[in-house]
């Protein structure tokens, strides 16, 4: 025989549980409404197109092993990382042209991301705002890149010099392929080291 006080206690606990469930449900609904209200997906504003600006692309030439600057007009975002990606994308678009002087398939899609981080203490001792650019390339770009010391070095040097020309605080560059470190670009150029943009810049305009 169950005592009466236990029956009453049981009923009270069941009622309290149901009440708490209802309150919880209402709180959840309220939070959901607040979230949806803050993230309206209605296209109320037109997408912002970055204004076209002058960018310097340091383009490679296989015939005479040179790096020569070219000025192009292209939309450049305000964010430095996105800006670097846009500039490198245009550079690789030049190389993807069948008539390119440094032909490399892939184009702009080959630059997946460019991250800008504080540079090493060595670089910062020369420039307090010095940055390290980490360029994440697509594996398809590395796989289709022509193999050779010269052609791979020119690609690396032109990327470094282009970054330096458009983002003067970029002093160092490292490369990733699909987010991973990789020994070489296509069997020759070392991708495990940090490249100094000042060296690539000094190679700019060089001819034999």
């Amino acid at each position, binding site marked *: 025989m169950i005592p009466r006080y236990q029956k009453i206690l049981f009923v009270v606990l069941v009622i309290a549980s149901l009440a708490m469930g209802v309150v919880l449900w209402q709180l959840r609904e309220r939070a959901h409404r607040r979230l949806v209200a803050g993230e309206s997906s209605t296209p109320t504003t037109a997408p912002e197109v970055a204004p076209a600006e002058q960018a310097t692309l340091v383009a490679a030439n*296989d*015939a005479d*092993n040179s790096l020569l600057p070219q000025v192009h007009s292209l939309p450049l975002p305000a964010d430095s990382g996105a800006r670097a990606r846009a500039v490198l994308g245009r550079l690789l678009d030049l190389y993807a042209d069948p008539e390119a002087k440094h032909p490399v398939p892939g184009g702009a899609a080959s630059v997946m991301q460019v991250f800008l981080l504080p540079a090493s203490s060595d670089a910062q001792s020369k420039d307090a705002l010095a940055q390290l650019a980490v360029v994440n390339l697509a594996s398809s770009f590395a796989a289709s890149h022509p*193999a*050779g010391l*010269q*052609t791979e*070095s020119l690609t690396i040097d032109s990327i470094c010099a282009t970054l330096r020309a458009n983002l003067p605080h970029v002093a160092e560059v490292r490369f990733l392929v699909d987010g991973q470190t990789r020994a070489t670009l296509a*069997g020759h150029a070392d991708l495990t080291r940090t490249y100094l943009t000042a060296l690539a810049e000094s190679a700019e305009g060089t001819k*034999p």
Partner: protein
Amino acid sequence: MHWSKSAPAVLLGVAAVMTAAAQQAPPTPLPRFVVVVDAAHGGDDTGGKLGSGTLEKAANLAMSVRLRSLLGARGISVVTTRESDVAVDANRRAEIANRVNAGACLSLHATDSGSGIHLFASSLAPAQPARFPAWKTAQAAWVTRSLAFAGVLNSALDHAGIGVTLSRTALPGIDSMTCPALAVEIGPQRGEDNKIGSEPDDADYQARVAASLAAAIVQWRTEGRQP
């Protein structure tokens, strides 16, 4: 020990004989001049694929054999990093060059892009020789000599009518070498219309390049021994 009265005279006599022997001894021979010829890639590391369909590792090995023969015929000792299609680690290549105290090292490559010969020296900044240099930057103390060596090769190849480009880049094996070291990449020979005349694995083209390289190394040996 008991010394007799004649001991000083005996010691003086021995000293006189040793001095005379030293004066009559032949001059110390010059240190052996060894060239390291490094055929890049090998084994699973095939390198690039040339327009003729030949793998770069095979073209490099063929060039290495040619150069070794020409240098041997000129009385120069040659050490190769590989004699067959085997994989050799970049560090192992540097170890071989450093162990024989090489007078010069050439790392041979071949490519389908560009034209003529592409010479590469290490991009390390020149540094003073250190007693215990860091492995990855050991070449820094030799960069100046490597660039001088590149000048000699450039002249010889130019003299043979073969186009040359000079560059500096990061080269994992060469950056660890303690000798004048260069990477020599053989590109196709192109005509005025930019059409390929000779592929990098063409036997005649390779023979011309090897002859020029051998002549340059002979000159380098001569220049290196001048006071």
